């Protein structure tokens, strides 16, 4: 079985400051890793994903995450945040080899709040 731990439930930062949202996972099999973002009163949207290949993956709005197999981590980073990044961020993991998303496990979420 897999599990996902998001160590910080809330992260307050000032606008234009860097941010890191931490995610650690445990699994006895190979996994795919994801970050989803949820803006207030909306559903979740896929932000970025690691399936294979380069361990550094990027989103279109400046976020990046690095898959670290030895530390079983997939931390999300952005060098300079904007007010519009205010949202809740969910890390997720799923074992490879399944044709549906029924095995995906979500972390408990990190609420990112940006101060002007």
């Amino acid at each position: 079985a897999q599990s996902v731990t998001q160590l910080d439930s809330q992260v307050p930062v000032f606008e234009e400051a860097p941010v890191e949202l931490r995610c650690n996972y445990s699994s006895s099999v190979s996994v795919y890793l994801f970050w989803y973002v949820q803006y207030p009163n909306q559903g979740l949207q896929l932000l970025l994903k690691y399936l294979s290949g380069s361990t550094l993956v990027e989103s279109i709005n400046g976020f990046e995450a690095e898959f670290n197999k030895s530390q079983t981590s997939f931390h999300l980073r952005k060098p300079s945040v904007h007010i519009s990044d205010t949202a809740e961020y969910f890390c997720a993991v799923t074992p490879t080899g399944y044709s549906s998303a029924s095995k995906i496990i979500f972390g408990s979420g990190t609420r990112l709040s940006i101060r002007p």
Partner: protein
Amino acid sequence: SQTIHQWPATLVQPVGSPLSLECTVEGTSNPNLYWYRQAAGRGLQLLFYSVGIGQISSEVPQNLSASRPQDRQFILSSKKLLLSDSGFYLCASSLAGQTGELFFGEGSRLTVL
């Protein structure tokens, strides 16, 4: 890309009343469909998923049921609501083989009084 429509967006129901939340998908055919419940600070819990018409898998025993009467329609129901059924319900879809890439609806917030 896929678009997920959910309704109603907000619902306040008394204990013991029935429930019906509906979800429809546009932009794809034969999707895998999912119902999640989101509780504050606890992430998302998968309730049901479906890989085809009439095929429903339940992940947790509970007071709820799901049905898929058409390829792109997924319904979450209850005959008698409990206080513990309150929460934010999300419908999602994925393409077979696109593991982990879920498309979510806007959610339905249910309050049971």
